[in-house]
């Protein structure tokens, strides 16, 4: 191999490792979650693969370089192809009874083994170039620049615009091109044929590797992979006049609405209606509301009801695709001023005052901690008018181990100087309900709500009216 070819290989090798390191954790986030711990585990799996690969490459560098290079790239290709097959199969069918097993199988076949093989090529390339100079730094430098270019492309272009599946297809094509290049001048027919087969397979995967499946009852409105993972909007016809629409982010339901006659919207979950009732504390006086976390936009939609309330509404949402989903499928009102930013960043820089702040932020299944820390709540306090209050939508667990995070939030709110009331929604069981934390700087007179909190029990509409502030 020429010096230029070696350096180009190092560039591509570094780039492809980084592509996998960004794409695979996002593929797995619907199952494994999106927390820092999950990211750290998967990055460690990748870095562990690099370490093993470097050792392995160091050993193989004592033997023939080109045949080993071909073998390593081919193993990497086969392993990634297996991962791709599991991913596309798992989108429609269940491979194992426990989907976490599938996730880790994808992590090993799609991230760990390809990383080991790709990293092993680096010492081989160093060995190949070392006749010319002491060039470990040069080869690693090219590999690293490949990593930089592909990290930027993957993070800012491939994933947000092409999605995860297409990014993986791109990986397979580039890897098969590398295999073909290794055997280009080889007189070994078997290797040459195998390299062409790999290239052919990667193109077949590109053409036939994307399928979606609809059931008879549920119609897919749109599926998109982007900044926060997989967005999915589906519709189910209940009867001729009523249909239900659901927004999923990483397979977790975020918004579930009932559409009557194509225009009237009701929430299947009770919490948006309860927040609307709480918002009526300010009656029809001109008021301002900040909604952190948009989802399908049902909370701002309810707050924008001018027949009962009089709010100007700012909504902060990080992902522009979610905003588009809310507008296209969940009737997000034009009256809502949508700001594309991270909620904590918005709070850090914000100088406006609000009468109501609704925090409805979930990253998949997790309420992001950096928005609910003492420091973040200081910014929330600063953004409240003296008579304003905050409503935090949180998961329904409050007892036992599952309720630790809710109890921690309660304590954090108290430590921040808020007066806090807890209003669980009316669904049955902690697993199904939400907890609404109502936090204010002054005691709230619950009798001032003009829209009663209503709920269904035993097929009857009932009304709930808290009698006094339960602040602690």
């Amino acid at each position, binding site marked *: 191999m020429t010096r230029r070819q070696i350096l180009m290989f190092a560039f591509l090798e*570094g780039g492809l490792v*980084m592509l996998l390191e*960004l794409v695979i954790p*996002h593929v797995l986030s619907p199952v494994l979650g999106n927390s*820092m*711990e999950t*990211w*750290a585990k998967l*990055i*460690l799996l990748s*870095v*562990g693969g690099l*370490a*093993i*690969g*470097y*050792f*392995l*490459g*160091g*050993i193989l*560098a*004592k033997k023939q370089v080109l045949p080993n290079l071909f073998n390593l790239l081919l193993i990497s290709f086969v392993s990634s192809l297996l991962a791709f097959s599991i991913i596309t199969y798992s989108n429609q069918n269940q491979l194992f009874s426990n989907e976490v097993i599938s996730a880790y199988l994808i992590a090993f076949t799609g991230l760990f083994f390809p990383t080991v093989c790709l990293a092993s090529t*680096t*010492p*081989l390339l*160093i*060995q190949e170039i*070392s006749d010319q100079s*002491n*060039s*470990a*730094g*040069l080869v*690693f*430098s090219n590999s*690293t*620049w490949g*990593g*930089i270019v592909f*990290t*930027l492309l*993957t*993070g*800012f272009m491939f994933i*947000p615009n092409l999605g995860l599946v297409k990014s993986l297809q791109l990986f397979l094509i580039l890897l098969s091109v590398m295999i073909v290049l290794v055997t280009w001048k080889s007189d070994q027919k078997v290797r040459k044929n195998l390299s062409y087969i790999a290239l052919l397979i990667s193109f077949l995967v590109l053409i036939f590797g994307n399928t979606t499946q609809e059931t008879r009852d549920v119609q897919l409105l749109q599926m998109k992979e982007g900044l*926060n993972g997989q967005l999915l909007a589906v519709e189910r016809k209940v009867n001729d006049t009523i249909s239900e629409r659901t927004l999923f982010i990483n397979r977790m339901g975020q918004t579930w609405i009932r559409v009557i006659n194509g225009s009237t919207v009701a929430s299947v979950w009770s919490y948006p209606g309860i927040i609307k009732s709480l918002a009526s504390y300010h009656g029809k006086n001109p008021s301002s509301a900040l909604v952190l976390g948009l989802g399908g936009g049902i909370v701002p939609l309810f707050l924008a009801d001018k027949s009962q309330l009089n709010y100007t509404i700012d909504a902060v949402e*990080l992902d522009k695709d979610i905003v588009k989903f809310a507008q296209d499928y969940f009737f997000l009102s034009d009256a809502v001023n949508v700001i*594309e*930013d*991270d*909620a*904590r*960043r918005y709070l*850090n*820089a914000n100088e406006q005052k609000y009468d109501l702040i609704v925090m409805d932020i979930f990253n998949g299944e997790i309420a992001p901690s*950096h928005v609910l*820390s003492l*420091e*973040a709540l200081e910014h929330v306090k600063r953004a409240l008018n003296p008579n304003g209050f905050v409503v935090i939508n949180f998961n329904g667990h409050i007892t036992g181990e599952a309720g630790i995070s809710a109890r921690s939030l309660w304590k954090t709110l108290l430590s921040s100087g808020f007066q806090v009331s807890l209003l669980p929604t009316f669904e049955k069981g902690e697993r199904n309900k939400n907890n609404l934390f109502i936090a204010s700087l002054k005691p709230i007179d619950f009798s001032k709500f003009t829209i009663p909190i209503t709920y269904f029990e035993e097929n009857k509409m009932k009304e709930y009216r808290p009698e006094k502030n339960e602040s602690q």
Partner: protein
Amino acid sequence: MTKIIAYIIVVLEGGALLSYEIMASKMYTPHVGATLYVWTSILTLTLIALALSYRLSQKWVEQQKWYILPYALIISGLYILLMVFFRNEILTVTYSMELVSAALFTGLILLLIPIMGMGITSPILSGWLTENQSKESNNSAGNFAGIIYGLGTLAGVGMTLISLFVAMPQIGVNNTLMILASLLIISGGLSFNLMKKNS
């Protein structure tokens, strides 16, 4: 013995590098959130710093300027200490930036200098070992590179697990960062000793 000291330096530096990279996400979140952009910024800036350090160290290896290594490690350690105390004040400037720029700027401040300093360790030490030890130990350039980079990365995995799941929950982010800074200063001292002995 010389080789063992070189390997210890790589283990200390490799452990500190990856742990610092992973822990950087905790320093990002109060200022730029916790999104794909944060991890893209961390990975990009880490790799830019490594690429620059590999390119520079390539020149230094050719010129046999081994003495740069201890200074680079000590500067990295001191820079991390600086970040422990002043990052929150410095990063307030990101509030007026657009999110992607803010994420990249944060990476520039937190990662570029210390990771460049740490990144020169593996190429300089593998060059130094090839130059000084290959005849004695019968190892090739590829062989030394494999051992050095493998050892450093493996130490990174181990140290990151300890930092993330033991140190950080027990003693917090800042104290863990101070431990990492200490490891770098110790490895700087060791490499100063190593280069002095063999000069």
